[in-house]
């Protein structure tokens, strides 16, 4: 692998992100919405809502009451339980949307963009191996997406602790769930989103077409969110470990699939008219 070539592709692609508003807006807006606005709103509502107002959500209250929250010391009030539930069970799936959506947008823009501007031909005609080309693009999609998630994680931590402190009198964020999410599940899922987007991009003619198809990658997150809200699947450390491992397995499968595209002549004929 030629590290200089990989870095040249990665840094070029990362520079181009800031020249494409459809991509960089996601890198700014999503972390703000998912990492700051929604957590802040959810905690403020959780803090101020009265139990009478929760009549319609008796099922949810029952569910929250049954969850054994650990590591926070002493019996928790229902408000504390509600906020703990929001922070540890409802926010993580929403949070996963940040790197996954961004990674998908960047990867699709990167691959289809090269086809649309006919620069892929220039890259293929250069002494650049296909493996280095893919590695550079993978890196260029992963770094900003994961960085946005990390930045958002920091902001979310500040907002959650600031708003929850009056109720708990100690820091509630991050729990072990969050640490595992950030270091294991999110990197794995981000990689899945990128690899999936690469495969979709190879078969798409335009950015819009690739974006629409690759968008299905967020469906598992929606499923996870519903699972959390209904109590069907509550994320525990073990479940997160399994999710990360399954995603890594999927990634290996996708990598093997993409490796078949490593033949320059086949890639050229399939991508360039």
């Amino acid at each position, binding site marked *: 692998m030629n590290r200089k070539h990989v870095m040249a592709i990665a840094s070029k692609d990362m*520079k181009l992100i800031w020249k494409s508003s459809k991509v960089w807006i996601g890198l700014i807006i999503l972390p703000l919405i998912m990492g700051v606005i929604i957590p802040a709103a959810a905690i403020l509502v959780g803090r101020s809502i009265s139990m009478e107002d929760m009549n319609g959500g008796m099922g949810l209250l029952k569910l929250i009451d049954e969850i054994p929250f650990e590591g926070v010391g002493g019996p928790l009030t229902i408000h504390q339980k509600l906020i703990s539930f929001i922070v540890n069970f409802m926010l993580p799936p929403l949070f996963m949307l940040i790197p996954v959506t961004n990674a998908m947008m960047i990867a699709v823009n990167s691959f289809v963009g090269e086809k649309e501007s006919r620069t892929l031909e*220039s890259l293929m*005609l*250069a*002494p650049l191996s296909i493996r280095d080309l893919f590695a550079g693009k993978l890196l260029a999609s992963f770094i900003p997406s994961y960085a946005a998630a990390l930045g958002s994680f920091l902001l979310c931590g500040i907002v959650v602790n600031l708003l929850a402190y009056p109720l708990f009198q100690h820091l509630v964020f991050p729990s072990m769930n969050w640490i595992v999410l950030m270091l294991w599940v999110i990197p794995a899922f981000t990689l899945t989103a990128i690899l999936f987007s690469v495969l979709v991009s190879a078969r798409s003619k335009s950015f819009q077409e690739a974006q629409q198809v690759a968008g299905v990658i967020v469906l598992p997150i929606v499923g996870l969110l519903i699972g959390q809200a209904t109590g069907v699947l509550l994320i525990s450390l073990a479940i997160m470990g399994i999710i990360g491992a399954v995603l890594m397995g999927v990634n290996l499968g996708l990598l093997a699939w993409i490796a078949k595209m490593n033949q320059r*002549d086949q890639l*050229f*004929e399939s991508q360039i008219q």
Partner: protein
Amino acid sequence: MIHVEEVAKSFQGKEILRNVSFNADRGEVVGLLGPNGAGKTTIIRLLNGVISADSGTIRVDGLDPHTNGNDIRKIVGVVTESAGLYPEMSGRENLLFFAKLYNCEDRSRIEWLLELLGLDKYSDKPVGVYSTGMKKRLAIAKAVLHDPALLFLDEPTNGLDPDGIQDVIGYLRTLNKEQGTTILICSHILYQLEEVCSSYVFLEKGRIIERGTLSELDARYVDEVILHVDTGLRTSDNEAAGYSYTVVGENKLQFRLPSKGHIPELLRSILSESWVHSAQIMNNNLEALYFEVRRRSDES
């Protein structure tokens, strides 16, 4: 430098090239001529190893493009029909990026090329706002960044104004003469090729119908000389020195002569009776030969 033998290529069941054979020696400038869809771009892609031939042999500097593609791509510069540049990046950023891929990050050379091709004033502007001609000039700068031994140029002067065409042709000629760069050039604008090419390959519907130098083609295809003479001569029988003529313009006569050897005798005869400002053979330039080669190929 380039050896192509019995090469065939199909794409999605359609035959693109059939039994294509030609050679180019080191330092030669070969013009690849043919209408759209003749297979010119396919030949350039095959030589670069970005697509593979169905059959036949290709060697570039002794290397097989299919197995040693990257070694070939290191010594080759390509100008594609679409410039292949990043529209969001500036001209300089584009060159800096490709310089990294070709391992030739010499900033002074980049600045020199930008100045040489008249792009230094626009080097910080995004390529998306460049005119077609400016993009083409930048594509040429990109192709020669690494000082390649071999240049493949697909319609390099498309979109250039007459001054730009002259500059590019002049630069290519200098590159070839001073550095011995071998050049394979495809172009529709034939009079430009005549200035720079040492030999030609004529391609039609995926097969080579003729090849040779201009003088070889002249000997093969020019059976009679069509001569335009700018003169004040007029005769009642429309004849001069025993050759009949037709009037094709004000003070312009067209003669049909059996060979070039008859020109001095004819001109001497006209000069003894009137003035002559110019005489030009009309059917031995590249354009006339191109159409004659294709016409005879269609007939056979």
